[in-house]
């Protein structure tokens, strides 16, 4: 299965690379409303994915016959505050998380610094989770054994 994920990731990365989604100028143009390429991409993706998910859920099973299980994301105050912070970073770097990796593959040297920052930011969040949990009403942690 790992090879399947690598293959899907490769196609996804190629599309991000060639569509403008991993391009600093296109990200700024989207936020400046001077170019609508990325709005078109997100809109098209949602317009096709939404009925697709609906059909797959109605079908109820994967290709291999396992029951479809979609883990839902929790709602809390972090959705708004975290979203705003991520938006600042998206604008500054001109990359959201997927394109950080795509830009590294393309050979954009500065993307390595963006990755280092993103890992540090995620690490920081994990380290302070229990301290900011009540402020943002974040869910309790379900800690496992690592076998999953």
């Amino acid at each position, binding site marked *: 299965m790992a090879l399947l994920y690598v293959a899907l990731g490769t196609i996804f990365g190629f599309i991000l690379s060639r569509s403008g989604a*991993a391009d600093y100028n296109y990200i700024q143009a989207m936020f400046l409303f001077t170019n609508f390429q990325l709005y078109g991409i997100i809109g*098209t*993706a949602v317009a096709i994915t939404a009925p697709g998910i609906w059909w797959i859920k109605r079908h109820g099973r994967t290709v291999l016959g396992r029951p479809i299980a979609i883990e839902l*994301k929790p709602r809390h105050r972090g959705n708004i505050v*975290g*979203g705003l912070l991520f938006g600042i970073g998206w604008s500054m770097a001109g990359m959201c998380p997927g394109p950080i990796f795509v830009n590294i593959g393309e050979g954009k040297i500065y993307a390595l610094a963006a990755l280092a920052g*993103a890992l540090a930011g995620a690490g920081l*969040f994990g380290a302070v989770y229990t301290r900011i949990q009540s402020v943002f009403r974040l869910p309790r942690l379900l800690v496992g054994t690592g076998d999953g």
Partner: protein
Amino acid sequence: MPLILHGLSPLHWAVAGAGIALITLALLFVANRRLGISTGLEDVCSFVLPVPYFARDAVRSARKWRLPFIVGLVLGGHLSAFLGGGFAPTWDLGIFDQVIGLGHAGKLAWMFAGGLFIGFGTRLAGGCTSGHGIFGVSNFELPSLISTVSFMAGGILTTQLIYRVIFHIGS
């Protein structure tokens, strides 16, 4: 508008959007996985940071698909550069170079700072453009809609502040 990468012409938005949708649906229909990339940052952290947040079941159980997918993203970018004119490491950053400038060290510092916001913000929001913006919105999940509106607002405010208010560019 050409891409920074070799000045290539981009794919048509409808083609790119359809391709992203097909990958998202394939992940769900074949592998029972919801698309989401920023959680991959946690997967990497979980190898080195011994705190409870990174020992969650949700992190540990997803490492074996998300990490190969991320390796694919790097390969996809590499393939795109290779086929589009050859792989050549670059510092080019489009209008940033024309308007803001900064040397190599300054650019690295800027990117690291942006990365901090991306890493902390996506984890606090519980997802990024892929997990919230594409999958969550397509699955009509309210937290994803709230997060998506929030990160679009954060990006619009920041870019407008930098390029229109501070540097006064017209287009």
